[in-house]
Protein backbone atom coordinates (compact mmCIF):
# COMPACT_ATOMS: atom_id res chain seq x y z
CA UNK A 1 0.00 0.00 0.00
CA UNK A 2 2.98 2.27 0.05
CA UNK A 3 4.77 3.99 -2.75
CA UNK A 4 8.43 3.16 -2.83
CA UNK A 5 11.22 4.38 -5.05
CA UNK A 6 14.52 2.50 -5.14
CA UNK A 7 17.75 3.88 -6.53
CA UNK A 8 15.85 5.81 -9.17
CA UNK A 9 17.53 7.76 -11.93
CA UNK A 10 15.45 9.96 -14.19
CA UNK A 11 16.37 11.98 -17.24
CA UNK A 12 14.85 14.47 -19.59
CA UNK A 13 15.55 14.19 -23.30
CA UNK A 14 18.21 11.57 -22.61
CA UNK A 15 20.13 13.79 -20.17
CA UNK A 16 20.08 12.48 -16.59
CA UNK A 17 18.81 15.00 -14.04
CA UNK A 18 18.41 12.99 -10.85
CA UNK A 19 20.15 9.77 -9.78
CA UNK A 20 20.35 7.48 -6.78
CA UNK A 21 17.03 8.56 -5.36
CA UNK A 22 15.39 6.25 -2.79
CA UNK A 23 12.41 6.98 -0.58
CA UNK A 24 9.09 5.52 0.52
CA UNK A 25 5.76 7.16 1.19
CA UNK A 26 3.45 5.13 3.41
CA UNK A 27 -0.33 5.31 3.41
CA UNK A 28 -1.47 8.35 5.33
CA UNK A 29 1.79 10.16 4.73
CA UNK A 30 2.79 13.12 2.62
CA UNK A 31 6.23 13.89 1.25
CA UNK A 32 7.15 17.36 0.08
CA UNK A 33 9.76 17.62 -2.67
CA UNK A 34 11.92 20.68 -2.73
CA UNK A 35 14.61 21.90 -5.01
CA UNK A 36 15.44 24.87 -7.19
CA UNK A 37 13.87 25.35 -10.65
CA UNK A 38 15.14 22.81 -13.12
CA UNK A 39 16.29 20.39 -10.46
CA UNK A 40 14.11 17.58 -11.82
CA UNK A 41 11.04 17.60 -9.59
CA UNK A 42 8.60 17.49 -12.49
CA UNK A 43 10.61 14.81 -14.28
CA UNK A 44 10.61 12.73 -11.11
CA UNK A 45 6.83 13.07 -10.72
CA UNK A 46 6.23 12.22 -14.39
CA UNK A 47 8.39 9.14 -14.00
CA UNK A 48 6.51 8.00 -10.90
CA UNK A 49 3.22 8.64 -12.70
CA UNK A 50 4.40 6.25 -15.43
CA UNK A 51 4.57 8.87 -18.17
CA UNK A 52 8.23 8.16 -18.77
CA UNK A 53 10.58 5.28 -18.12
CA UNK A 54 13.16 5.50 -15.34
CA UNK A 55 16.77 5.46 -16.58
CA UNK A 56 17.61 3.15 -13.68
CA UNK A 57 15.96 1.89 -10.54
CA UNK A 58 12.40 0.99 -9.69
CA UNK A 59 9.09 2.57 -8.75
CA UNK A 60 6.73 0.28 -6.85
CA UNK A 61 3.10 0.77 -5.93
CA UNK A 62 2.30 3.52 -8.41
CA UNK A 63 0.77 1.81 -11.42
CA UNK A 64 -2.93 2.66 -11.91
CA UNK A 65 -3.04 4.09 -8.40
CA UNK A 66 -1.93 7.65 -9.03
CA UNK A 67 -3.72 10.90 -9.68
CA UNK A 68 -1.28 13.22 -11.40
CA UNK A 69 -1.80 16.95 -11.05
CA UNK A 70 0.55 18.73 -13.42
CA UNK A 71 1.03 22.38 -14.34
CA UNK A 72 -1.83 22.02 -16.84
CA UNK A 73 -5.19 21.10 -15.38
CA UNK A 74 -6.61 19.03 -18.24
CA UNK A 75 -9.78 21.10 -18.35
CA UNK A 76 -12.00 21.59 -21.37
CA UNK A 77 -12.98 25.22 -21.84
CA UNK A 78 -16.23 24.33 -23.60
CA UNK A 79 -17.48 22.06 -20.78
CA UNK A 80 -18.99 23.24 -17.51
CA UNK A 81 -17.29 22.73 -14.14
CA UNK A 82 -19.61 19.84 -13.28
CA UNK A 83 -19.17 18.21 -16.73
CA UNK A 84 -15.39 18.38 -16.43
CA UNK A 85 -15.43 16.69 -13.04
CA UNK A 86 -18.01 14.10 -14.02
CA UNK A 87 -15.90 13.15 -17.02
CA UNK A 88 -12.77 12.57 -14.95
CA UNK A 89 -14.75 10.68 -12.32
CA UNK A 90 -16.11 8.37 -15.02
CA UNK A 91 -12.66 7.84 -16.57
CA UNK A 92 -11.36 6.67 -13.21
CA UNK A 93 -14.44 4.51 -12.65
CA UNK A 94 -15.85 6.69 -9.87
CA UNK A 95 -19.05 8.63 -9.43
CA UNK A 96 -20.14 11.49 -7.24
CA UNK A 97 -18.53 14.89 -7.55
CA UNK A 98 -20.34 16.70 -4.72
CA UNK A 99 -17.61 16.18 -2.12
CA UNK A 100 -14.97 17.56 -4.49
CA UNK A 101 -17.12 20.57 -5.46
CA UNK A 102 -17.69 21.31 -1.77
CA UNK A 103 -14.08 20.86 -0.71
CA UNK A 104 -12.83 23.41 -3.22
CA UNK A 105 -15.74 25.84 -2.89
CA UNK A 106 -16.92 25.31 -6.47
CA UNK A 107 -20.62 24.74 -5.70
CA UNK A 108 -21.63 28.15 -6.99
CA UNK A 109 -19.70 27.66 -10.21
CA UNK A 110 -20.89 24.22 -11.26
CA UNK A 111 -22.76 25.41 -14.37
CA UNK A 112 -20.05 27.88 -15.40
CA UNK A 113 -17.94 26.94 -18.40
CA UNK A 114 -14.37 26.17 -17.47
CA UNK A 115 -13.17 28.63 -20.10
CA UNK A 116 -14.79 31.49 -18.19
CA UNK A 117 -13.16 30.71 -14.84
CA UNK A 118 -10.34 32.80 -13.41
CA UNK A 119 -6.86 31.28 -13.16
CA UNK A 120 -7.31 30.50 -9.47
CA UNK A 121 -10.73 28.97 -10.01
CA UNK A 122 -9.35 26.81 -12.80
CA UNK A 123 -6.60 25.65 -10.49
CA UNK A 124 -9.16 24.76 -7.82
CA UNK A 125 -11.13 22.78 -10.39
CA UNK A 126 -7.93 21.02 -11.45
CA UNK A 127 -7.26 20.08 -7.83
CA UNK A 128 -10.86 18.97 -7.31
CA UNK A 129 -10.21 16.53 -10.16
CA UNK A 130 -7.75 14.69 -7.90
CA UNK A 131 -10.52 14.07 -5.38
CA UNK A 132 -12.95 12.56 -7.89
CA UNK A 133 -10.40 10.08 -9.22
CA UNK A 134 -10.43 8.07 -6.00
CA UNK A 135 -6.74 7.28 -6.54
CA UNK A 136 -4.78 6.58 -3.34
CA UNK A 137 -1.57 8.31 -4.43
CA UNK A 138 -1.61 12.00 -5.35
CA UNK A 139 1.32 13.36 -7.32
CA UNK A 140 1.19 17.12 -7.27
CA UNK A 141 3.38 19.46 -9.24
CA UNK A 142 3.28 23.03 -7.89
CA UNK A 143 -0.36 22.69 -6.85
CA UNK A 144 -0.70 26.15 -5.35
CA UNK A 145 0.23 28.25 -8.38
CA UNK A 146 -2.26 31.15 -8.74
CA UNK A 147 -4.16 30.18 -5.56
CA UNK A 148 -4.94 32.81 -2.92
CA UNK A 149 -4.31 32.17 0.80
CA UNK A 150 -7.87 30.95 1.44
CA UNK A 151 -7.66 28.49 -1.45
CA UNK A 152 -4.29 27.21 -0.27
CA UNK A 153 -5.95 26.49 3.08
CA UNK A 154 -8.77 24.64 1.27
CA UNK A 155 -6.19 22.63 -0.59
CA UNK A 156 -4.28 21.78 2.61
CA UNK A 157 -7.53 20.64 4.21
CA UNK A 158 -8.28 18.43 1.21
CA UNK A 159 -4.81 16.88 1.35
CA UNK A 160 -5.17 16.26 5.09
CA UNK A 161 -8.55 14.57 4.56
CA UNK A 162 -7.01 12.46 1.81
CA UNK A 163 -4.18 11.37 4.12
CA UNK A 164 -6.57 10.56 6.95
CA UNK A 165 -8.54 8.36 4.56
CA UNK A 166 -5.40 6.30 4.00
CA UNK A 167 -4.08 8.07 0.93
CA UNK A 168 -0.57 9.26 0.22
CA UNK A 169 0.69 12.41 -1.43
CA UNK A 170 3.89 13.50 -3.09
CA UNK A 171 3.98 17.28 -3.49
CA UNK A 172 6.55 19.39 -5.29
CA UNK A 173 6.18 22.91 -3.98
CA UNK A 174 8.10 26.02 -2.99
CA UNK A 175 5.70 27.33 -0.36
CA UNK A 176 4.81 26.05 3.09
CA UNK A 177 1.44 24.28 2.93
CA UNK A 178 1.10 23.90 6.68
CA UNK A 179 1.16 20.13 6.34
CA UNK A 180 2.89 17.88 8.83
CA UNK A 181 5.01 16.30 6.14
CA UNK A 182 8.53 15.12 5.64
CA UNK A 183 10.58 17.22 3.28
CA UNK A 184 12.93 15.77 0.69
CA UNK A 185 15.36 18.13 -0.97
CA UNK A 186 16.31 16.70 -4.35
CA UNK A 187 19.36 18.93 -4.82
CA UNK A 188 21.93 16.40 -3.47
CA UNK A 189 20.67 13.78 -5.95
CA UNK A 190 21.43 15.86 -9.01
CA UNK A 191 23.01 13.65 -11.65
CA UNK A 192 26.48 14.47 -12.89
CA UNK A 193 26.38 15.99 -16.35
CA UNK A 194 27.84 13.84 -19.11
CA UNK A 195 26.78 10.54 -17.57
CA UNK A 196 24.63 9.72 -20.56
CA UNK A 197 24.05 6.02 -21.00
CA UNK A 198 23.39 6.05 -24.71
CA UNK A 199 22.96 8.76 -27.29
CA UNK A 200 19.85 6.99 -28.60
CA UNK A 201 18.10 7.31 -25.26
CA UNK A 202 15.88 10.18 -26.36
CA UNK A 203 14.49 8.14 -29.22
CA UNK A 204 13.94 4.85 -27.43
Amino acid at each position, binding site marked *: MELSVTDLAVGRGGVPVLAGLSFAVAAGEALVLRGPNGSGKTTLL*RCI*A*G*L*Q*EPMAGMVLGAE*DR*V*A*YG*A*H*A*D*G*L*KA*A*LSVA*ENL*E*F*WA*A*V*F*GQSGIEAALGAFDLDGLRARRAGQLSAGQKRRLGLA*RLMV*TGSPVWLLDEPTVSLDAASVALFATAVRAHLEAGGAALVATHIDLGLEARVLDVTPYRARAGAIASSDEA*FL
Partner: protein
Amino acid sequence: MRALLIRDLRLALRAGGGFGLGLAFFLIVVVLVPFSVGPQTGLLTRIAPGVLWLGALLACLLSLDRLLAVDWEDGALDVLATAPLPLEGVLAVKAAAHWITTGLPLVLAAPLFGVLLNVPAQGYGALVLSLALGTPALSMIGVFGAALTVGIKRGGLLLSLLVLPLYVPTLIFGAEAARRAAEGLDSATPLLFLAGITAGVLATMPFAAALVLRVNLR
Protein backbone atom coordinates in the same frame (compact mmCIF):
# COMPACT_ATOMS: atom_id res chain seq x y z
CA MET B 1 -14.50 4.67 -22.23
CA ARG B 2 -18.09 5.66 -22.85
CA ALA B 3 -17.52 8.84 -20.87
CA LEU B 4 -14.60 9.68 -23.16
CA LEU B 5 -16.69 9.11 -26.29
CA ILE B 6 -19.51 11.25 -24.93
CA ARG B 7 -17.08 14.00 -23.93
CA ASP B 8 -15.42 14.05 -27.34
CA LEU B 9 -18.76 14.18 -29.15
CA ARG B 10 -19.97 16.92 -26.82
CA LEU B 11 -16.80 18.94 -27.39
CA ALA B 12 -17.15 18.53 -31.15
CA LEU B 13 -20.73 19.78 -31.07
CA ARG B 14 -20.05 22.78 -28.82
CA ALA B 15 -18.89 26.08 -30.25
CA GLY B 16 -15.43 25.90 -31.77
CA GLY B 17 -15.43 22.11 -31.75
CA GLY B 18 -15.09 21.75 -35.48
CA PHE B 19 -18.15 19.60 -36.13
CA GLY B 20 -19.31 20.16 -39.68
CA LEU B 21 -15.90 21.36 -40.82
CA GLY B 22 -15.31 18.17 -42.82
CA LEU B 23 -18.81 18.21 -44.20
CA ALA B 24 -18.51 21.84 -45.29
CA PHE B 25 -15.18 21.11 -46.98
CA PHE B 26 -16.67 18.09 -48.74
CA LEU B 27 -19.56 20.24 -49.96
CA ILE B 28 -17.17 22.92 -51.25
CA VAL B 29 -15.14 20.36 -53.24
CA VAL B 30 -18.19 18.72 -54.72
CA VAL B 31 -19.84 22.01 -55.65
CA LEU B 32 -16.70 23.46 -57.22
CA VAL B 33 -15.69 20.44 -59.34
CA PRO B 34 -18.59 20.81 -61.84
CA PHE B 35 -17.66 24.47 -62.29
CA SER B 36 -14.02 23.70 -62.87
CA VAL B 37 -14.46 20.84 -65.39
CA GLY B 38 -17.23 22.57 -67.30
CA PRO B 39 -20.75 21.54 -68.35
CA GLN B 40 -20.01 18.01 -69.55
CA THR B 41 -22.31 15.60 -67.74
CA GLY B 42 -20.64 12.56 -69.33
CA LEU B 43 -17.23 13.53 -67.99
CA LEU B 44 -18.67 14.37 -64.58
CA THR B 45 -20.34 10.98 -64.35
CA ARG B 46 -17.03 9.30 -65.13
CA ILE B 47 -14.96 11.17 -62.53
CA ALA B 48 -17.69 11.46 -59.86
CA PRO B 49 -16.74 8.39 -57.73
CA GLY B 50 -13.10 9.43 -57.62
CA VAL B 51 -13.91 13.05 -56.78
CA LEU B 52 -16.31 12.03 -54.03
CA TRP B 53 -13.73 9.71 -52.48
CA LEU B 54 -10.96 12.27 -52.76
CA GLY B 55 -13.19 14.91 -51.18
CA ALA B 56 -14.07 12.58 -48.29
CA LEU B 57 -10.41 11.72 -47.72
CA LEU B 58 -9.26 15.34 -47.68
CA ALA B 59 -12.18 16.30 -45.44
CA CYS B 60 -11.02 13.64 -42.97
CA LEU B 61 -7.46 14.90 -43.15
CA LEU B 62 -8.54 18.45 -42.39
CA SER B 63 -9.53 17.77 -38.79
CA LEU B 64 -6.72 15.38 -37.86
CA ASP B 65 -4.15 17.81 -36.48
CA ARG B 66 -6.44 18.92 -33.64
CA LEU B 67 -7.39 15.34 -32.78
CA LEU B 68 -4.85 14.81 -30.00
CA ALA B 69 -3.14 18.22 -29.97
CA VAL B 70 -5.95 19.84 -27.99
CA ASP B 71 -5.78 17.20 -25.27
CA TRP B 72 -2.00 17.42 -25.24
CA GLU B 73 -1.96 21.19 -24.82
CA ASP B 74 -4.33 21.31 -21.86
CA GLY B 75 -2.71 18.36 -20.10
CA ALA B 76 -5.69 16.03 -20.46
CA LEU B 77 -3.62 13.54 -22.44
CA ASP B 78 -1.17 13.13 -19.53
CA VAL B 79 -4.03 12.42 -17.16
CA LEU B 80 -5.65 10.00 -19.61
CA ALA B 81 -2.34 8.17 -19.96
CA THR B 82 -2.09 7.76 -16.16
CA ALA B 83 -5.76 6.76 -15.80
CA PRO B 84 -6.56 3.08 -15.35
CA LEU B 85 -7.77 2.88 -18.96
CA PRO B 86 -5.63 1.15 -21.58
CA LEU B 87 -4.14 3.81 -23.84
CA GLU B 88 -4.98 1.63 -26.85
CA GLY B 89 -8.64 1.80 -25.86
CA VAL B 90 -8.45 5.56 -25.33
CA LEU B 91 -7.09 6.04 -28.85
CA ALA B 92 -9.62 3.67 -30.41
CA VAL B 93 -12.38 5.68 -28.73
CA LYS B 94 -10.82 8.90 -30.02
CA ALA B 95 -10.88 7.45 -33.54
CA ALA B 96 -14.51 6.41 -33.07
CA ALA B 97 -15.45 9.91 -31.96
CA HIS B 98 -13.60 11.39 -34.94
CA TRP B 99 -15.41 9.01 -37.29
CA ILE B 100 -18.83 9.86 -35.84
CA THR B 101 -18.22 13.60 -36.20
CA THR B 102 -16.41 13.50 -39.56
CA GLY B 103 -16.78 10.18 -41.40
CA LEU B 104 -20.40 9.38 -40.65
CA PRO B 105 -21.78 12.75 -41.86
CA LEU B 106 -19.79 12.27 -45.10
CA VAL B 107 -21.29 8.82 -45.61
CA LEU B 108 -24.80 10.13 -45.03
CA ALA B 109 -24.30 13.18 -47.24
CA ALA B 110 -22.62 11.30 -50.11
CA PRO B 111 -25.86 10.33 -51.96
CA LEU B 112 -27.00 13.95 -51.87
CA PHE B 113 -23.65 15.21 -53.14
CA GLY B 114 -23.61 12.42 -55.74
CA VAL B 115 -26.57 14.12 -57.41
CA LEU B 116 -24.46 17.25 -57.90
CA LEU B 117 -21.87 15.16 -59.74
CA ASN B 118 -24.39 13.25 -61.85
CA VAL B 119 -23.65 9.80 -60.39
CA PRO B 120 -25.82 7.21 -62.25
CA ALA B 121 -28.64 5.61 -60.27
CA GLN B 122 -27.04 2.17 -59.95
CA GLY B 123 -23.90 3.67 -58.34
CA TYR B 124 -25.36 5.05 -55.12
CA GLY B 125 -25.50 1.81 -53.12
CA ALA B 126 -21.85 0.92 -53.62
CA LEU B 127 -20.76 4.54 -53.16
CA VAL B 128 -22.35 4.78 -49.72
CA LEU B 129 -21.24 1.28 -48.78
CA SER B 130 -17.64 1.91 -49.83
CA LEU B 131 -17.51 5.17 -47.83
CA ALA B 132 -19.08 3.47 -44.81
CA LEU B 133 -16.46 0.69 -44.99
CA GLY B 134 -13.50 2.93 -45.76
CA THR B 135 -13.88 6.03 -43.58
CA PRO B 136 -13.37 4.21 -40.23
CA ALA B 137 -9.91 3.24 -41.49
CA LEU B 138 -9.21 6.89 -42.38
CA SER B 139 -10.03 7.97 -38.82
CA MET B 140 -7.99 5.21 -37.20
CA ILE B 141 -4.92 5.86 -39.38
CA GLY B 142 -5.41 9.54 -38.63
CA VAL B 143 -5.19 8.88 -34.89
CA PHE B 144 -1.92 7.05 -35.48
CA GLY B 145 -0.57 10.03 -37.41
CA ALA B 146 -1.79 12.42 -34.72
CA ALA B 147 -0.08 10.33 -32.04
CA LEU B 148 3.17 10.48 -34.03
CA THR B 149 3.12 14.26 -34.30
CA VAL B 150 1.45 15.19 -31.02
CA GLY B 151 4.27 17.13 -29.40
CA ILE B 152 5.12 19.16 -32.46
CA LYS B 153 3.90 22.70 -32.86
CA ARG B 154 2.17 23.13 -36.22
CA GLY B 155 2.53 19.41 -36.88
CA GLY B 156 -0.25 19.47 -39.45
CA LEU B 157 2.02 19.42 -42.50
CA LEU B 158 4.12 16.55 -41.18
CA LEU B 159 0.96 14.73 -40.19
CA SER B 160 -0.48 15.02 -43.70
CA LEU B 161 2.74 13.77 -45.28
CA LEU B 162 2.93 10.80 -42.92
CA VAL B 163 -0.70 9.83 -43.22
CA LEU B 164 -1.31 10.26 -46.97
CA PRO B 165 0.65 7.16 -48.09
CA LEU B 166 -1.26 5.10 -45.55
CA TYR B 167 -4.52 6.39 -47.01
CA VAL B 168 -3.67 5.27 -50.55
CA PRO B 169 -4.91 1.62 -50.34
CA THR B 170 -8.22 2.71 -48.87
CA LEU B 171 -8.60 5.37 -51.57
CA ILE B 172 -7.76 2.96 -54.40
CA PHE B 173 -10.19 0.24 -53.39
CA GLY B 174 -12.90 2.62 -52.20
CA ALA B 175 -12.90 4.68 -55.40
CA GLU B 176 -12.63 1.50 -57.50
CA ALA B 177 -15.70 -0.02 -55.84
CA ALA B 178 -17.69 3.17 -56.40
CA ARG B 179 -16.50 3.44 -60.02
CA ARG B 180 -17.34 -0.16 -60.94
CA ALA B 181 -20.81 0.14 -59.47
CA ALA B 182 -21.41 3.41 -61.32
CA GLU B 183 -20.49 1.68 -64.59
CA GLY B 184 -22.87 -1.17 -63.81
CA LEU B 185 -20.11 -3.71 -63.05
CA ASP B 186 -19.81 -6.02 -60.07
CA SER B 187 -18.07 -4.20 -57.19
CA ALA B 188 -17.86 -7.04 -54.67
CA THR B 189 -14.10 -7.63 -54.97
CA PRO B 190 -12.89 -4.08 -54.21
CA LEU B 191 -15.48 -3.81 -51.45
CA LEU B 192 -14.11 -6.97 -49.84
CA PHE B 193 -10.55 -5.65 -50.13
CA LEU B 194 -11.68 -2.37 -48.61
CA ALA B 195 -13.39 -4.16 -45.71
CA GLY B 196 -10.25 -6.23 -45.19
CA ILE B 197 -8.01 -3.16 -45.07
CA THR B 198 -10.33 -1.47 -42.59
CA ALA B 199 -10.50 -4.56 -40.37
CA GLY B 200 -6.70 -4.84 -40.37
CA VAL B 201 -6.28 -1.15 -39.58
CA LEU B 202 -8.80 -1.26 -36.75
CA ALA B 203 -7.09 -4.31 -35.27
CA THR B 204 -3.49 -3.07 -35.37
CA MET B 205 -3.46 0.73 -35.42
CA PRO B 206 -4.65 1.31 -31.81
CA PHE B 207 -1.57 -0.57 -30.59
CA ALA B 208 0.81 1.25 -32.92
CA ALA B 209 -0.73 4.60 -31.98
CA ALA B 210 -0.49 3.89 -28.24
CA LEU B 211 3.13 2.84 -28.63
CA VAL B 212 4.21 6.04 -30.40
CA LEU B 213 2.12 8.18 -28.09
CA ARG B 214 3.88 6.74 -25.02
CA VAL B 215 7.20 7.69 -26.60
CA ASN B 216 5.91 11.18 -27.41
CA LEU B 217 4.61 11.81 -23.89
CA ARG B 218 8.02 11.37 -22.31
